[in-house]
């Protein structure tokens, strides 16, 4: 029920005072305002905030109702407002990332549980068959039995290092599934990264390339992969992502093993790999860490390739990427991305 004296108002995140009021409110509820929040709406009682909700991309988050206003159905109003705005932005497949004790509230608002880390976090989506449909998409007609493995890659862009990891894994298995991380937070757009991986592994007959979509290291399953500052949350997020992987993707494809490149640079990826070695074996999936391919005594990494692109050393880039990737990099199609890389610098 709406309280008559409550008014709904969008919070201008650019305005310092309003943003601070939102952050203070969330802090009282034990929540931090995520860096990627792009829209926030609040119910005000006079000048005081009674309830808020936010979203970044397709993930609704930071939804909270102040103690004295609870049990009045305010969250329904907040979630309705958020969903309407998401639809207006042409996003209809939505996720909620929240504490497990809120499960019932959101379940009544039309959200379905994907995975849960007890006492920590729960991931829900607004489609009852979202992940089931995704599984149907990746499984295709032919189900392979026996020695099946998976590797998840971002490939920003596809380097000789990735090629080496994939060739190594493909040689050791009957069937290898490659998942390309789908979130558009990397320098190269998802479709391009996917295309370069496909072209780069064409010579391997037992390899299948999939789009990771929303369920593998996405903004929904592993938000902190893209937000570099929340180290303490990384472990929980990694657990959630791997939970989704082992609960849904492993049984659907009959995966027995996951290959992963050794991670000497990025702490977040290193944490993720460590948790993987803890969780996956418990689900009957072996993990093999493959040392990085080195060139000129330095490990080949996509971040190094991007750095070389940034400083314009295309000759050196050529030594670290397959022909297919290099061909793309010097094509007109790559111009926009390359210009962007030259303007910024970040790890993923």
């Amino acid at each position, binding site marked *: 029920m709406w309280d008559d004296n409550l008014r709904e108002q969008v919070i201008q995140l650019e305005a310092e005072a309003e943003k601070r009021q939102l952050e203070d409110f969330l802090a009282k509820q034990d929540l931090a305002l995520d860096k990627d929040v792009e829209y926030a709406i609040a119910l005000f009682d006079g000048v005081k905030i009674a309830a808020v909700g936010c979203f970044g991309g397709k993930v609704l988050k930071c939804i909270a109702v102040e103690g004295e206003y609870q049990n009045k159905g305010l969250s329904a109003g907040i979630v309705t407002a958020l969903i309407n705005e998401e*639809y207006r932005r042409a996003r209809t497949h939505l996720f909620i990332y929240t504490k497990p004790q809120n499960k019932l509230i959101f379940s009544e608002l*039309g959200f379905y549980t994907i995975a849960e880390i007890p006492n920590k976090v729960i991931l829900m989506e607004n489609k009852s068959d979202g992940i089931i449909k995704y599984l149907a998409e990746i499984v295709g007609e032919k189900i392979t039995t026996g020695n099946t493995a998976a590797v998840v890659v971002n490939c920003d862009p596809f380097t000789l290092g990735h090629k080496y990891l994939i060739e190594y894994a493909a040689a050791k298995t009957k069937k290898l599934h490659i998942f390309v991380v789908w979130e558009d937070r990397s320098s190269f757009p998802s479709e391009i990264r996917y295309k370069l991986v496909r072209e780069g592994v064409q010579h391997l007959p037992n390899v299948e390339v999939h789009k990771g979509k929303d369920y593998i290291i996405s903004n929904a399953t592993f938000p902190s992969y893209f937000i570099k500052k929340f180290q303490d949350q990384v472990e929980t997020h990694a657990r959630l992502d791997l939970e989704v992987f082992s609960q849904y993707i492993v049984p659907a494809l009959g995966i027995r093993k996951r290959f992963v490149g050794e991670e000497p640079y990025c702490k977040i990826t290193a944490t993720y790999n460590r948790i993987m070695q803890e969780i996956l074996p418990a689900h009957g999936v072996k993990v093999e860490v493959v040392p990085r391919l080195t060139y000129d005594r330095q490990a080949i990494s996509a971040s190094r390739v991007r750095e070389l692109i940034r400083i314009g050393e295309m000759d050196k880039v050529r030594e670290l990427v397959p022909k297919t990737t290099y061909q793309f990099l010097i094509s007109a199609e790559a111009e926009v991305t390359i210009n962007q890389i030259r303007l910024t610098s970040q790890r993923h």
Partner: protein
Amino acid sequence: MKIHDVGMAGTLESSDITIHIEDNEGKGIEIGLKSTVENQFGNQIRKVIYETLQELEVKDALVCATDKGALDCTIRSRVMTAVNRACQSNTYPWEAK
């Protein structure tokens, strides 16, 4: 009417229903319902949605409904509006001759 786009109408407030509708090319009408009164009125709600779609001559549609105890008249209105939005039509179904 042919569903081109995604259409949504309604809220998640008590006594209302949210209707999400999208194309379901060649697969007929499919209704996914979540309701707080599923046990008591689930089938009645599905029936109202189905009949409203038939009246509007919608052949293929995937409907996701989240119900919080809406009355039949509310369900009808929400379905009509959602269909209208999904068809990008300028004439409301209750105005069309």
